[in-house]
């Protein structure tokens, strides 16, 4: 595995928030890579990402909902080495300057795949700034951890555990 490229360098200047986490999932590296290769899959486990749609090429359109505010931007997949690494970066005109990289490698002893994720967001200005700062500020790591745990459950079992909608007595 090559030395991970520093994701911070993908976002201009030192602004914004970056977070990074590694998780092992008990599925083969090919399957895990191909799941992430289709960024359209991300809303299945990323709570704030409403949709990611692809133009069929390298450009994806992201819609992220924070409380009641929706922020949209276009991103370009800038690196996709099968079963190794995937990187994307928002296009220059985007309301949110964002970038992400995912590295994949087989875990030793047939234990699945080690997935390392690094994300960076920096609001450029306008209405999104405050919301983005709030969402991707102090909560950024927590949100990413939750999202990755949901990703693990989804790819290992086909579903994300939930109790939303179960009965209870009056609270």
């Amino acid at each position, binding site marked *: 595995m090559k030395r991970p490229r520093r994701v911070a360098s993908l976002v201009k200047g030192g602004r914004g928030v970056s977070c990074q986490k590694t998780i092992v999932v008990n599925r083969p590296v090919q399957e895990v890579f191909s799941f992430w290769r289709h960024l359209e899959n991300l809303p299945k486990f990323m709570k704030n990402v409403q949709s990611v749609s692809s133009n069929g090429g390298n450009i994806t359109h992201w819609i992220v909902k924070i409380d009641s505010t929706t922020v949209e931007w276009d991103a370009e997949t800038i690196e996709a080495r099968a079963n190794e690494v995937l990187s994307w970066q928002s296009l220059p005109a985007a309301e949110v300057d964002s970038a992400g990289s995912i590295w994949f490698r087989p875990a030793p002893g047939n234990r699945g795949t080690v997935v390392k994720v690094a994300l960076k967001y920096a609001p450029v200005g306008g209405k999104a700034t405050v919301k983005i700062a709030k969402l991707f500020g102090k909560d950024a790591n927590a949100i990413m951890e939750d999202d990755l745990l949901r990703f693990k459950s989804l790819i290992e079992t086909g*579903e994300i555990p939930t109790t939303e909608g179960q009965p209870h*007595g009056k609270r």
Partner: protein
Amino acid sequence: MKALCWYGKHDVRVEKVPDPKILNPHDAIVKITTSAICGSDLHLYDGLIPRLEKGDILGHEFMGEVVETGPEVKNLKAGDRVVVPFTISCGQCFFCQRGMWSLCDNTNPSARESEMVTGYVCSGLYGYSHVYGGYAGGQAQYARVPFANVGPIKIPDGIPDEKAIFLSDIFPTGYMAAENCDIKPGDTIAVWGCGPVGQFAIRSAFLLGAERVIAIDDVPERLEMAKEGGADAVAADGDEVFETLKEMTGGMGPDGCIDAVGMEAHGFTLDARLDRFKQAMKLSMDRPTVLRQALRSCRKGGTVSVPGVYAGFLDKIPFGLVVAKALTIRTGQTHVQRYLKPLLQKIQNNEIDPSFVITHRLTLENAPLGYKAFLKKADKCVKVVLKPHALQQSE
């Protein structure tokens, strides 16, 4: 439907709540025919387990009839009679695939909260703290069973509910506690606590080949039940337990010691009184009197097995003894799925009839009375089973 809900310390009520629904593709809905109150429910009842919410439906020992299945459940169909393990497991993760079902990575919706408390995610449990996911429990008329393709075991028609229900928890829990002692021919096993788990630990130790089992408790009828299971009884009366065990084993000490009491040990020694004060003042969550005694009593190189529930940081554990005597400590929530088939087989072979432990049978409406009796050990209560669909008798 009707369900028993938690509202606070010594406050549980039977409420009318919505029926459970299928929420995920691997879910099933079970109509509960028999449910039970577990000793670990008493820790909730006593308000000692953090992160319960008012209105939570309790209960993690239940069985019944499948009434509905999600699209991905292929092994069960409506009408099947099943026992549901209290640990919810996915069957697909590193831990499930190695038989460590209660350590499942994927069934706890409060995964990050669990990770913050224990460092790593532990499996979801029914009717327990929200650290374990806060799944609605089975002291109710119906329950949603997630990952139903992995957990529930089908029960043949010839086996009545009362023989099968305890496969959900206390029989496997007692069995794993005994198995963890790695019993060899000639071994003596000491069991602290003759509540339901202790009773099953005693009988399981014999099933696994123990020569002798010594049961320790302070409740006469529970010791009586232990004796019926073949154990020698020792009345728990403070520091003398160690001397008694040493004498009974010719100075050697028991080969395996099982703490089937956990965080709410009564205890009569000075350290026990101090623990009680600390717990009452919320300075400590646990009263590890029994654990200390087990560590002291166990023979050199022996095993201390802990099925009893502890929740937090234990005070004044003589860890020096563990090192000096080269003790092995084994514990954990029960990997229930590992034991379902072999223990059902033992029931079918008449090697054991788990219904021996039942002392009280109640309707769901009377479950709050069951909690009270179980807590106070009133009316010689050892184990309460509930019949959620039985008609309430007019008083």
